[in-house]
């Protein structure tokens, strides 16, 4: 009924559509699985259940809270309302200091302890992650 050319074109376009739909589906699916949510210590306190998902917590490193030994670094992140303990073994950025902003990424053990896998590097000493700034402004 239709010429060979039309058929070819229809085939081409439907192939294209299918691949586009497939890739969008794939992307969205893995986005859902791999997204890391950002929370403040207060939001952690208000959680009803603890999921086994990676999260980020932002706030300030509490004064005099850093304790270091040969394996671990532990400290307290605060948003001046609530606090959370963090246990970390890994590389810390240069600008990790008491009284400065910090973002820690890892898994919650319970509502008061985060086992961190990564502490995010900041680029200059005045820099504060926007998340932290906002969390601090909210208080």
């Amino acid at each position: 009924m239709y010429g060979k050319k039309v058929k070819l074109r229809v085939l081409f376009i439907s192939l294209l559509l299918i691949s586009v739909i497939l890739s969008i589906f794939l992307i969205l699916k893995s986005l859902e699985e791999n997204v890391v949510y950002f929370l403040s210590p207060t939001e952690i306190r208000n959680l009803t259940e603890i999921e086994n998902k990676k999260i980020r917590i932002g706030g300030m490193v509490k004064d005099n809270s850093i304790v270091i030994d040969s394996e671990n670094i532990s400290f307290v992140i605060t948003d001046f309302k609530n606090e959370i303990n963090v246990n970390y073994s890994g590389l810390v950025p240069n600008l990790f200091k008491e009284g400065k902003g910090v973002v820690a990424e890892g898994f919650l053990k319970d509502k008061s302890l985060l086992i961190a896998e990564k502490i995010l590097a900041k680029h200059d000493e005045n820099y504060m992650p926007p998340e932290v700034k906002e969390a601090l402004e909210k208080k």
Partner: protein
Amino acid sequence: MFFSQLGYYSLICGLIFSVILVPIAYKDLSIAKTSISSNIFIFTSLQLIFVFLSFICLVISFINSDFSNEIVYNNSHTTKPLFYKISGTWGNHEGSLLLCLLILVLFIFIFLITSKREPKKYQIFTLLFQEVIIIGFFLFLLITSNPFNHLFPAPKEGLGLNPILQDPLLAIHPPILYLGYIGSSIVLSSSIAAIIQNYVNSQWAKNLKNWVIISWFFLTIGIVLGSIWAYYELGWGGFWFWDPVENISLMPWLCLTALVHSVIVLEKRSMLATWTLILSISSFTLSMCGTFLVRSGILNSVHAFANDPKRGVFILIFLFLLIIISLFIFFVFYKEIKIEQKSFLFSKEISILINNWFMMYFLSVVLIGTVYPIFLEVIANEKISVGPPFYNKLLIPFLIPFLFFMSIGPSMKWIRHNIKLINVRLILLFLLSSFVSYLILIRTNLNTLFTTILLVVSIYLFFITVRDFFIKNQKNFSQKISHFGFSLLILSIVLNGIFSSEVITNIKIGEKYEFSNGSIYFENIKSSKKQNYMSFVGTFRIIENNNKEILLRPELRIFNQPITITSEADIKTNFIGDKFLVMNLVKGNEYYNIRYQTKPFMIWIWLSAILMGSGALTNFFKRR
């Protein structure tokens, strides 16, 4: 003081000439001469000269540490070494924009000189559209980010340049990256001109190809330089982190890579015309989107200078105008040339089309991964981040078919390629690469099917690209080099991923740390005073199971202005791999936080990426 004034006024002169250039060029359209009028050349050169003068004035203000200039005050310091005073010129928002503007006017000048054989109207329309972009940049500079703002009274001392930017690589990284980004503006303008003039054909493709290759080359080198810098200066200890800022440079790169391929099809076979236009428009748009996202402070990074919402709004409006004008011209003026072209399923053009499909897939993954968190924050006020697992999961599986197609595609013929299903040589090569990967993999305890296939395919591609050098025709020499560079890059990345190892610990001076196959001994730490920082160099003695002892001396620098601590990793590089040690001080000065990494084939990653970029350039030398 004097130079700031001079720079400011010559910038304004430059703007005036740009504005005058528009009616002159427009008038020249109706003059029936085959070459464009000399007035256009004069005004383009004047525009170039004044912007250049203005840029030089800014450089001189930085060299003289003229703190009556606001950006010199904000970004420089008298104790800074001369080299970094100069590079400080583009180490800030205003100066880097001025550099961009300089490259814009330089490129349109070069375009006019080198395209004399092209149709006159095509040249003029390219110039006109490029002038729109140039005037946009002028206004952006003068209205929102004037590099010659005056401070009175002039402060005695400046605030200093962010110390992590004081690095030789980072001094040349921005100019080279801008050459790449701005190069794609010529690609955009000439596409628009070609649409209006109905000149979208193989001859145009030949002209366009040069610009695509130039911007692709600079973008590639610029990205590599930035990546090397992040490796040793930020102590990230790797080559790519899927950081939003990196992604933003990767997006136009993927787009240009697709364009480099599709423009060849347009040149040789007069096909894919519409597609080539879409890619041309997208590459500059993506570059500008990147500028918008980093400069408006939406993405936080070392590239986000002073955040001023006004600037973000300006770029956004400018960006929308560019896109709307481009799309309008595209839909209203574009007439597709109907040329009957036969192509068979097995042919070079189809394999290039497949390459483009993959590029577009990679591009959309990176785009969505980068933009989605921003969207979610605006719409739902939820804060999320998308990390490496997302990209690894979506990109690596598709890398396998991509590499496979890449190994068979380039050797195909145009129009129709007769494939022999049983090609003894190719099968032998495949067996050989399987054998080699077997030899590599038995030395590790990694034996997932996935890694195995990836390794086999990348070694296979490597063999194929090496073999291509021994095929007699020297026609596609640049393609051979670039593809060889790419295959080496992928192979190094895969091997690097398989064999990397790291040890992180906290250690005191005089302590020894034992790990599974070696030990680290922290001998001592020495301090000394340098021109604008205090230096603390630690000495670490590392013994690994082969009993070879190495000394690594990472450094901590405490800069005086602004007071900042940076760590300089110590890296021992050889052809097999890097030994990387970085240290940080956590609290007090008892424990040092160190990371020791073995990173195989790092140098090959850098070298092959540079080789891949340079391959494109041989295109120009050949013709002379």
